[in-house]
């Protein structure tokens, strides 16, 4: 019984053409690489920002940003950890100030970026600003989400 014979001369293995698929895959990778945003580390899911039509992304990055989050109940989140009281933030601010002074840069180079929840109390946000002012910070950026309008 003959099970298998030698391939006839001229018989070829049929191979699918992979080129279009690889092209498409590389284009997809390029697309996602361009759009990926690692700056999401600055964001915090506990904070729901207010919206504003004038909130446009800055044209150039801030020189020395210090991002502070504030949740709805007034808790302060700094560097990913929620602080028990607002006063616990003071050592971190002192540290930031010393870093600036160590580099010989003025305090006006630093910007306190406040990402407060839309339902946070105005008085608590103002106390946070006051705390930063006491540590010689003078530039503040109140962050809001861009509102594209109706």
């Amino acid at each position, binding site marked *: 019984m003959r099970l298998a014979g030698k391939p006839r001369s001229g018989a070829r293995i049929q191979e699918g053409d992979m080129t279009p698929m690889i092209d498409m895959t590389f284009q997809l990778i390029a697309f*996602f690489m361009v759009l990926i945003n690692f700056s999401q580390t600055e964001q915090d899911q506990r904070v729901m920002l*207010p919206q504003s039509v*004038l909130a446009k992304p800055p044209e150039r990055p801030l020189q020395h940003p210090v991002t502070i989050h504030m949740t709805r109940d007034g808790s302060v989140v700094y560097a990913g950890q929620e602080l028990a009281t607002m006063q616990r933030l003071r050592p971190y601010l002192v540290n930031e100030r010393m870093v600036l002074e160590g580099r010989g840069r003025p305090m006006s180079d630093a910007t306190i970026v406040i990402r407060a929840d*839309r339902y946070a109390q105005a008085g608590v946000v*103002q106390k946070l600003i006051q705390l930063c002012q006491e540590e010689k910070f003078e530039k503040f950026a109140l962050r809001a989400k861009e509102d594209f309008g109706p």
Partner: protein
Amino acid sequence: MKFRHVGSQEERKIELQMTPMIDIVFQLLTFFIMSFKIVAQEGDFNIQMPLATQQQGLPEDSPLVTLHVQLRADATGRLLSSGGIVVNGERMLDSIEALHNFVIGVVGGDEPSARADAEVEFDFDYGLHYEHIIEAITAVSGYVDRSTGQVQKLIEKIKFTPPAEPAAS
């Protein structure tokens, strides 16, 4: 001279091994798809607000027009629907839109110097929601021109009064 004859032996087709490359490409693609997240753009309202010093008299760059805007909140933290905004202690406004129109009436002319010389000092009730701060700052800072899509600035100098103590319940 003897040249090497390539096809002397059995002719072989040299094929690139595509499988590892496709594997890693798909892993990269999966990584980027999984870590991709559509996030709304964020923007800042910049405020220059150093701690008040004990200087006497007016500073050199004292603004010509200063609006003192008080925002009052109800028990839930919302802006009072009637008379929630008080300008310069006398003019009562009912909405953020009314504040915006008022500011346009004061500095919204064609005189850029009027805008540069104006300043707004906000005084918020302690329990007011932060979103109303942003709304008020937006109202006095400018607006988006619908015809051009450009931002028309109004007043850029903004400061806050020291925080008030929470109202006793």
